[in-house]
């Protein structure tokens, strides 16, 4: 056994992907959280020319969906290639049909799964076994890893065993807890892996390839006579799997000393009570069981590694004969079953064994990464002592509805002594997590100590907070749960003290490092009194450093990470001071070195300046000052918000009982207004004196934080003197005054409004009508103004020309204060749709950024108007959104028909006049809609007064008489790739749906992977050397139908055209497709200038603006209108301002030149084509046929 193996500090994804890449020839993938990094790493390794064990660079291909990835995997196996893929959750579900085939054909391959919750009442990106459990029937062998080390080791065992057994393997580890935990592991060398893998098995795999030199057929259709027998023919292969896995485990043990078995056991060898589980919970279970066993309790834990095929003999072999009671834990839920899958397997195995049946109970734990700690383990083992234990239970939650949950004594701890635990609270933008990852690497790779890092992110994409949980110890760390009793707490942003319970998990006497603008002798009274009290009560030692100033002086802006990292090393003494500084610099060099000398220089300067700024605070005996922590929601918030939303905002969601949560996932809208985040350091301040009333600022605001209202003098009467207003301009709102107001606590400070403001002061041109100014100078006054502003009356929708820029902006946004990135390019479009049609809007939202900022708890930006009307929103899946939206349309139409039928029978009650009015209503205008609503209200009143069954039946149908606007929204990943087939079908259906594609030209939500919307010459993940092929022209494919309204828009390029296109799309009584150019941080641009980038995208011809209106065809005009002028600049001019293009120009100038020339040709050719189209007459396809 060699001891020369490299020690690396990696996460579970990297650990597994490393082995998979070394052992594969074809890797066909599709991004999905939390498995995406495996595919990205594999792609990066191949792009860098890193070969597999046999010198061949694996071909990594990104497909249009997991279904596509699985198809390619299937084909590659049939072609005789060593093949793998990575996925999770819904992605695994999309692979199921192929998995049945692959297993049925006894084909060796491995699917590595970062196990993730399958969406049910809600989506969750976090970890549990609901996805892998859904794959039990496929015939894949299933191998579970419980730690980062195991993610590597089991990956190797899976690849070896699949070749030897011909049974395909699903290797899984828990999403986030293992996939994203960073830990020190011993890396397998190429020699190790080569030693384990069988050359004969590989040769046999290749021999089975479909090959015309030796032709066979596979995939036949069989009939009742033989299918069954054929299905049973594979049994011997399954019977052999456990033995072959055991053999691979023994090989690994021989090489590395790490001995695994298909079932393992820890605890008292003569245990009476045994816990059975698999996955990352094993760490917590091991700690608890060992502690309890050491204190004399007869307990143990049986660890499942090879879950399928379930080897009963091996299972019984490790289960102590002394066992009298068993608790089986499943990290999944199978509603209505007699028990969850692992429980059922265990019961069946025991029953078949003929042993005296021990008592067996089963429970659920850890769904969606719910914390699972030794305290939970103890609660489960304790339950086995009870006379009448809960046969089915849950642990880790408070179930006050079904009463299934176990009581947990949270004071029970089982973490071994000698562990240094540290927590760090930071902002996403300050680099805290990156520095902590480096800290874990430094300790892990520079010392003999073990290190672990786990990182918790919040649900917002702007102003997000991060919490890092770090452990350092002399022995391997098995604590697979969050840090508690931290000996060190770093608070990297002063403001967080008011928002989060930063010191709640600090151990008594812990060291606290605070990034503070106040010096050590002045900081105390600036701390919230609650924090002061915690410091006094726990006897904490507080140190401050003004990291912001040090970082700014070093030219690092707000990136305070290396300053605070250096201070952590200084205070913790985990390494000698000089050694620590050298190690941090080495880590910085390794992480950022490629990006240039200046990056290193500035970081080094920050590191060198850090310790000198550190000072310890003398803790007074008593609290002082009047600062208090901010309440999560304002006083007076609705009951649900106060009782449910507020604890979630405060980070106390774990404490909510089952009864607090809606059983069907239905939540109230209009809740983002209660989540006041105050994250902007600067906010826009309006100067009415030079305002030209163009409404652009409100239109472009991604967060609806710039509002405007047109009000009369009378309505303004009685306003506080501080309220600003100015005269209106133009013909839209005569006799009104304009009020523009910032929502100071909701603004993210992106500055897009300032970028587009065209009104400049005559005296000082840099002063615009709207200017970013420090929030501290304006917050109080702007809060007052905003409160008053909210009370000003909304304009009557009937008075507004909705399809115009100013008209649309006179209307209240019903999409506000989302958690989207600061300066998001998508949300202005979404908000615009909510303004124009919000009170009758139904939204089907594809999974992606828009579903996350639209529907991620705790709050939703979808809002309601004063009458309580507003968008009704839902997210089904990623791949099915168009179909889902069509379903909503069909239902609305059917309800409308049912309502008409019902009305026809109610002429007597309602009066023929009202019925005629309701049935014949023209709802094309706001006035028509208003009148219809009035009629519906009248009808409701009369029907409620009428007790007849016919009337009662008709009541719920009345609202269906109001015209609905169905919008299908999603990103390019959905529309161009995974959902394209469905989108195409829905557009072809002829039904009245409106599709809004928020085209960021890349998978934004999962971190910038290339889609078919990614343009030629851009770099993206899976196209790191620049995308070689051009962007799909989605608009043209839709236009081919002839009866689909199609528009391509870019708000920053032409705001009027944007509003007009959305208005036309909605009014068109058939399918409409609007493709909206949406800048994204994945473009590598300054987001405050994202509207200017849109303008340049269009002026260079990169993004053409057009509208194709079939109504024009019907009236024999030219239906295609090219709205953008001939290009006045080149693609190069545009592209060099965006890092997605310019990065390639630097890194590979020759390829960039070639690709950019081709991209310019794309533009020239497309323009030529569009100009010809603009001159074409075209009629509608066929006769107009009623649907």
């Amino acid at each position, binding site marked *: 056994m060699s001891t020369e193996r490299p020690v690396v500090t990696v996460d579970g994804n990297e650990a597994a992907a490393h082995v998979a890449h070394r052992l594969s020839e074809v890797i066909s993938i599709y991004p999905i959280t939390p498995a995406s990094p495996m595919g990205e790493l594999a792609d990066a390794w191949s792009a860098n020319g890193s070969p597999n064990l046999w010198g061949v660079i694996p071909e990594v291909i990104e497909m249009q969906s997991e279904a596509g990835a699985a198809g390619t995997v299937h084909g590659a196996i049939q072609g005789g290639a060593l093949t793998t893929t990575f996925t999770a959750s819904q992605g695994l579900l999309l692979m199921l049909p192929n998995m049945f085939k692959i297993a049925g054909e006894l084909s060796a391959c491995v699917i590595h799964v970062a196990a993730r919750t399958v969406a049910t009442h809600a989506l969750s990106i976090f970890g549990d076994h609901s996805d892998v459990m859904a794959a039990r029937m496929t015939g894949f062998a299933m191998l579970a890893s419980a730690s980062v080390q195991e993610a590597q080791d089991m990956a190797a065992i899976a690849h070896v065993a699949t070749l030897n057994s011909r049974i395909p393997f699903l290797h899984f580890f828990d999403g986030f807890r293992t996939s994203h935990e960073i830990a020190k592991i011993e890396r397998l060398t190429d020699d190790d892996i080569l030693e384990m893998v069988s050359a004969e098995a590989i040769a046999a795999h290749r021999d089975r390839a479909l090959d015309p030199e030796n032709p066979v057929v596979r995939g036949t259709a069989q009939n009742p006579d033989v299918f069954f027998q054929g299905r049973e023919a594979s049994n011997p292969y399954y019977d052999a799997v456990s033995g072959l896995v055991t053999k691979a485990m023994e090989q690994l043990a021989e090489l590395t000393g790490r001995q695994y078995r298909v079932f393992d056991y820890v605890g008292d060898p003569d245990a009476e009570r045994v816990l059975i589980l698999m996955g990352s919970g094993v760490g917590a279970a091991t700690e608890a069981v060992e502690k309890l066993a050491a204190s004399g309790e007869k307990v143990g834990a049986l660890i499942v590694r090879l879950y399928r095929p379930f080897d009963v003999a091996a299972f019984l072999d490790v289960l102590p004969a002394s066992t009298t009671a068993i608790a089986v834990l499943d990290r999944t839920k199978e509603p209505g079953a007699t028990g969850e899958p692992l429980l059922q397997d265990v019961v069946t195995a025991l029953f078949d064994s003929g042993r005296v049946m021990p008592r067996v109970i089963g429970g659920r734990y850890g769904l969606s990464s719910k914390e699972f700690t030794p305290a939970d383990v103890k609660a489960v083992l304790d339950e086995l002592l009870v006379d009448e234990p809960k046969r089915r239970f849950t642990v880790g939650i408070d179930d006050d509805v079904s009463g299934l949950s176990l009581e947990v004594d949270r004071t029970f701890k089982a973490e071994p002594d000698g562990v240094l635990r540290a927590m760090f609270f930071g902002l996403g933008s300050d680099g805290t997590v990156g520095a902590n990852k480096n800290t874990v690497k430094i300790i892990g790779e520079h010392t003999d100590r073990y290190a672990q890092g786990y990182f918790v992110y919040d649900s917002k994409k702007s102003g997000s907070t991060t919490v890092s949980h770090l452990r350092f110890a002399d022995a391997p760390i098995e604590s697979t749960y969050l840090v508690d009793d931290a000996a060190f707490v770093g608070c990297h942003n002063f403001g967080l003290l008011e928002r989060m319970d930063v010191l709640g998990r600090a151990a008594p006497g812990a060291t606290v490092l605070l990034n503070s603008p106040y010096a050590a002798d002045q900081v105390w009274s600036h701390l919230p009194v609650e924090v002061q009290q915690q410091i006094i009560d726990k006897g904490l030692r507080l140190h401050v450093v003004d990291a912001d100033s040090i970082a700014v002086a070093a030219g690092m802006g707000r990136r305070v990470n290396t300053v605070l990292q250096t201070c952590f090393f200084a205070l913790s003494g985990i390494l000698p001071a000089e050694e620590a500084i050298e190690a941090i610099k080495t880590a910085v060099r390794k992480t950022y070195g490629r990006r*240039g*000398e200046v990056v290193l220089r500035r970081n080094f300067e920050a590191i060198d300046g850090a310790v000198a700024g550190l000072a310890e605070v003398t803790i007074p005996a008593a609290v002082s000052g009047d600062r208090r922590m901010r309440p999560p929601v304002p006083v007076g918030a609705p009951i649900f918000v106060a009782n449910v939303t507020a604890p979630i905002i405060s980070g106390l969601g774990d404490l909510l009982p089952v009864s607090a949560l809606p059983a069907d996932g239905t939540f109230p809208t209009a809740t983002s207004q209660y989540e006041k985040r105050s994250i902007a350091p600067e906010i826009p301040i309006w100067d009415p004196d030079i305002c030209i009333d163009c409404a652009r600022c409100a239109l472009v605001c991604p967060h609806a934080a710039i509002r405007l209202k047109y009000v009369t003098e009378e309505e303004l009467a009685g306003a506080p003197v501080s309220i600003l207003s100015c005269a209106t301009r133009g013909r839209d709102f005569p006799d009104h005054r304009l009020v523009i107001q910032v929502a100071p606590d909701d603004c993210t400070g992106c500055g897009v409004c300032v970028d587009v403001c065209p009104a400049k002061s005559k005296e000082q041109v840099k002063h615009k009508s709207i200017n970013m100014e420090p929030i501290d100078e304006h917050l109080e006054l702007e809060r007052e103004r905003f409160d008053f502003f909210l009370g000003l009356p909304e304009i009557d929708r009937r008075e507004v020309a909705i399809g115009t820029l100013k008209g649309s902006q006179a209307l209240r946004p019903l999409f506000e204060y989302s958690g989207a990135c600061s300066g998001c390019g998508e949300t202005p479009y979404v908000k615009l749709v909510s303004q124009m049609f919000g009170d009758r809007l139904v939204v089907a939202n594809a999974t992606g950024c828009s579903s996350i900022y639209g529907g991620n708890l705790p709050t939703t930006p979808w809002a309601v108007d004063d009458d309580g009307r507003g968008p009704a929103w839902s997210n089904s899946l990623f791949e099915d959104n168009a179909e889902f939206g069509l379903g909503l349309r069909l239902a609305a139409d059917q309800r409308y028909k049912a309502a008409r039928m019902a009305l026809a029978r109610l002429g007597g009650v309602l009066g023929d006049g009202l019925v005629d009015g309701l049935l014949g209503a023209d709802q094309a205008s706001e006035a028509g809609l208003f009148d219809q609503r009035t009629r519906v209200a009248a009808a409701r009143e009369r029907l409620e007064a009428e007790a007849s069954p016919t009337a009662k039946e008709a009541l719920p149908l009345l609202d269906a008489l109001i015209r609905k606007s169905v919008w299908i929204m999603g990103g390019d990943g959905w529309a161009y790739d995974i959902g394209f087939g469905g989108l195409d079908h829905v557009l072809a259906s002829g039904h009245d749906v409106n599709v809004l594609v928020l085209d960021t030209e890349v998978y934004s939500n999962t971190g*910038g992977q290339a889609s078919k919307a990614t343009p030629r010459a851009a770099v*993206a993940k899976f196209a790191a050397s620049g995308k070689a092929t051009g962007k799909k022209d989605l608009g043209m494919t839709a236009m081919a139908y002839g009866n689909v309204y199609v528009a391509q828009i870019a708000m920053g390029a032409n705001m009027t055209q944007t509003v007009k296109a959305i208005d036309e799309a909605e009014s068109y009584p058939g399918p409409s497709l609007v493709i909206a150019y949406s800048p994204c941080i*994945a473009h590598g641009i300054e987001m405050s200038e994202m509207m200017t980038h849109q303008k340049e995208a269009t002026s260079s011809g990169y993004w053409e603006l057009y509208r194709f209106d079939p109504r024009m065809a019907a009236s024999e005009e030219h239906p295609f209108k090219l709205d953008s002028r001939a290009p006045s600049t080149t693609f190069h001019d545009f592209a060099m301002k965006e890092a997605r293009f310019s990065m390639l120009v630097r*890194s590979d*100038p020759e390829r960039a030149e070639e690709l950019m020339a081709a991209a310019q040709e794309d533009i020239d050719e497309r323009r030529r084509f569009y100009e010809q189209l603009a001159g074409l007459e075209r009629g509608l396809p066929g006769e107009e046929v009623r649907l």
Partner: protein
Amino acid sequence: MSPDLRTTYLGMELANPLVVSASPLGRDIERLIRLQEAGAAAVVLPSLFEEQIDHESYQAHAVMEHGAESFAEALSYLPEMTSYNTGPEQYLKLVRRARRELTVPVIASLNGASPGGWTSYAERMVDAGASAIELNVYIVAADIDESAEQVEQRYLDIVESVRGVIEVPLAVKIGPFFSSMGNMARRIVEAGADGLVLFNRFYQPNIDLDDLEVVPDLVLSTQSELLLPLRWIAILHDRVEASLAASTGVHDGFDVIKLLLAGADVTMMASALLLHGPARMREAIDTLYTWLESNEYESVEQMKGSMSWQGAPNPSAFERANYMEQLTTFTLPRR
């Protein structure tokens, strides 16, 4: 006897006194080859801008870090590149290629405004094959708290720091805006310059009246701009221990002749080449040759500086008297 066009610049013997000036022209090796074929005796490559390198490196870093490690589903938004090439590598590649493809001396140009880590770039340029370094220093003294002495000292510090790291000749390209241009020139030479390039051209701010924005502007030089370097070359010739190169406003052979007469060792051309192509180089050399021949000069060396401050029949014309002279000969147009 045919005139000898050879000259010596920075200790290097050149076939003639026409050199390609630092400009975007030099980014295209094919164009440099054509210029060499047209007779260019040396080329100065376009400038490597210290600030630009710093800015671009940090920008690339900032873009990579923006939004990173903030959201569980997207720990980054752009792919990590094998190489960002934000440093001087691309420039060094150009130097290496120019050295390989050209036979004339290749002078690398480095542009900066503050002493700092950038001196190492000079070393790397030499390693890449540069025959000499042209250091282009241009400081806009916009900080009104910084005195003239302090600004001048910065020039000298930069020159010294670069001088300290390279063995090859060092030319320093400066602007004319010193209270005592001649004294400053001498101090720069004392600080280690082997030659002076008079003068640099730079982007000047302009105002865009449509957008009311300040925009950088660079117009090509005109022949009238020649007169400023002409004066200072005449004044400095033989009074500083350094080669003199004339840059700015050199558009044809007659310009070259005037500058050589004033005392330039070489003349540098860019705008005229951008406007008229490489052929202009050949035409200028031919003009020089013909002029020397018809005026019976033996060589460039013979004519060099013959009309300098020291050699001219009326040297005061290079000084203030020049202005007086113009005034006295100026007559009002007839109405």
